[in-house]
């Protein structure tokens, strides 16, 4: 049984992200003893590779690519399992001057056709000529890709000759990889990340955001086909010779506490998760592990990837505080794949800071007024927003109006970003690219927010905003409230608005319903309407649908716009209507049809 890789190199000086390309960074990290460890479903060590071993395997694989006649610039689709093979092929591309395209996994029972369609659109859009994936997934790849120049398992590629193959690594002014990001499943958009963008972002994260130091160790269950997993917990640590302990996403989802056990056992200091990861842990609870789990060395518990929800993080501290976990370790951040990964970080060792704003003022004016806890107006409803911090050095964030005019502090508008981490564009997609850049060259993130003393606060997605009778309603507020009901699960709810001619905007709440009894469904519908009314003071129409109706983007976020399109197209309709139920559902349906 091999041991895990060390957290510290014995003789190699610690260098934080001071490299012009990934290959240069890996060459350096390979001179030490740190590396990557892969753990199984119960937290047992499965495989361990030093950066030297990863580099050696990547270099010979790059020679094989050359010997096989693959040209520089070739796109290589790689199924991004959390495995040594993914790292080897990703870095082999760096030494071969070829562009890796990480492909997602899926967990949907019986989702074969949808998955193949998604892979196909990604492979086609990237113009990939090579595809590699584990044996049990090869049939999806073959079905999705049709005929490519080369398609096979890692073993197939390892069997190719390498002697005499040339290395032709990317230079600092070239591309690095393609990251599929936002955008619906059917029309994927691949961010072309350059060597400059990834090394700039890793520098900002390493030096500014996390202040990486000798002895830091990272742990991750984040999928490697997602920017937070790939950039945050593969490329950035490598560029600073930091050891990474990996847990496959599936194993985290099944047994979330394994994440915390790994952090405890191996003395990790840095790990990130969207809010829901912390929520999963809270739901499991400590289960008597309090005595064995020690989270006191966890100095950066990052949160990103979706809106940060302070109340969940408070509950995490409530549950796991006894393990030595410090609330000051929480590090809210903001970013997006179009800016490689990170845009803003809050200061280290500060914890979550919340701006409490006047709910009514906020809803009616599009600007915010902070509410002091004990000041005048404390009786008014306050809406808490988590502050996401300041931009990385050399990066700028502004808030713009719909007319692209810069807005002052405390005014809600479009969040735009500029800096060296921002992409040049989506791969092979000038139309999508020009749609996300302003005329003066800033990236429009598609998010809404405001600034307060140079710090960014994100309030939601622009296009998802529901406006009813002049009231701004954030759909995630409605969704979270409904998800908290009994018989409803996370990711079961989509809220959006439709504009009816002559009627103005109406709010629709689509809810995936597992109840079989017609009366029970109607009772749930009433509860949802009441809850929504309590949450935002507005009425909504509830549409109960079967599980698996809602659509998600390639990064797993709810796609309200896709659900909305399905609704308008008449592809989504109420379960109780389907069984011929009369009553409220029928009435609601006929109303929506008129």
């Amino acid at each position, binding site marked *: 049984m091999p041991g895990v890789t060390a957290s510290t190199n014995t003789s190699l000086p610690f260098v934080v992200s001071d490299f012009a390309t990934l290959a240069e960074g890996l060459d350096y990290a390979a001179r030490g003893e740190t590396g990557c460890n892969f753990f199984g479903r119960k937290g047992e060590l499965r495989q361990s590779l030093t950066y030297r071993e990863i580099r050696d395997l990547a270099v010979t694989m790059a020679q094989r690519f050359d010997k096989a006649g693959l040209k520089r610039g070739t796109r290589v689709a790689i199924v991004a399992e959390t495995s040594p093979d993914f790292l080897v092929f990703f870095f082999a591309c760096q030494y071969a001057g070829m562009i890796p395209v990480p492909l997602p996994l899926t967990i949907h029972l019986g989702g074969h056709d949808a998955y193949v369609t998604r892979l196909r659109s990604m492979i086609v859009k990237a113009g990939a000529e090579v595809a590699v994936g584990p044996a049990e997934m090869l049939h999806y790849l073959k079905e999705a890709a049709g005929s490519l120049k080369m398609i096979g398992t890692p073993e197939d590629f390892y069997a190719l000759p390498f002697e005499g193959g040339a290395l032709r690594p990317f230079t600092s002014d070239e591309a690095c990889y393609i990251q599929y990001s936002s955008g619906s499943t059917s029309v994927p958009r691949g961010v072309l990340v350059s060597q400059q963008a990834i090394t700039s972002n890793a520098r900002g994260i390493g030096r500014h955001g996390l202040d990486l130091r000798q002895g830091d160790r990272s742990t991750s269950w984040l999928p490697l086909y997602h920017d937070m997993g790939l950039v945050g917990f593969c490329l950035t640590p490598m560029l600073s010779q930091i050891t990474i302990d990996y847990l496959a996403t599936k194993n985290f989802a*099944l047994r979330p506490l394994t994440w915390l056990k790994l952090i405890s056992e191996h003395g990790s200091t840095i790990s990130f998760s969207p809010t829901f990861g912390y929520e999963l842990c809270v739901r499991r609870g400590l289960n008597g592990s309090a005595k064995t789990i020690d989270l006191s060395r966890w100095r950066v518990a990052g949160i990103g990837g979706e809106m940060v929800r302070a109340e969940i993080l408070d509950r995490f501290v409530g549950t796991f505080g006894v393990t030595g976990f410090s609330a000051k370790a929480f590090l809210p951040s903001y970013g997006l794949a179009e800016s490689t990964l990170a845009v803003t970080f809050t200061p280290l060792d500060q914890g979550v800071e919340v701006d409490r704003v006047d709910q009514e003022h906020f809803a009616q004016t599009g600007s915010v007024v902070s509410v002091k806890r004990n000041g005048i107006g404390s009786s008014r409803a306050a809406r808490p927003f988590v502050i996401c911090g300041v931009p990385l050095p050399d990066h700028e964030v502004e808030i713009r109006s719909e007319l692209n005019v810069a807005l002052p502090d405390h005014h809600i508008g479009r969040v735009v970003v500029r800096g060296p981490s921002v992409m040049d564009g989506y791969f092979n997609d000038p139309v999508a690219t020009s749609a996300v850049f302003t005329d003066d060259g800033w990236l429009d993130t598609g998010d809404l927010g405001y600034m307060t003393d140079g710090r960014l606060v994100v309030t939601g997605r622009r296009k998802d905003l529901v406006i009813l009778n002049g009231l701004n309603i954030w759909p995630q507020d409605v969704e979270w409230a409904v998800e908290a009901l009994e018989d409803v699960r996370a990711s079961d709810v989509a809220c959006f608005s439709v504009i009816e001619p002559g009627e103005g905007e109406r709010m629709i709440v689509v809810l995936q319903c597992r109840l079989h009894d017609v009366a029970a469904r109607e009772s749930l519908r009433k509860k949802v309407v009441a809850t929504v009314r309590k949450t935002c003071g507005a009425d909504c129409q509830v549409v109960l649908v079967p599980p698996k109706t809602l659509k998600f983007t390639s990064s797993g976020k709810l796609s309200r716009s896709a659900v909305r399109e399905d609704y308008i197209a008449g592809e989504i309709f109420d379960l109780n209507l389907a069984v011929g139920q009369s009553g409220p559902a029928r009435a609601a349906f006929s109303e929506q049809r008129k």
Partner: protein
Amino acid sequence: MQWTADTVQTEVVQLLEPFNPKGIELTPETDLSADLYMDSVAAMNLVMEIEDRFEIDIPISLLPDVNSLQDLVDVVLAQLSKD
């Protein structure tokens, strides 16, 4: 314990019972998502139960091809034969 196709099937049916509140009859043809309304959360819970019961690892890459109860039994048998 030496598993056979029959005992695996019996065991899988038992593990599926909590996901079958309506108590429909479970046959090899039962469709997990269409008949039992299993979504990905339920699927992950089922995978965990199965992994723990049979002491096997189920790669999630197999799930898209699992439609029926029989498909699930076949996956378990295939993974058992690997260990």
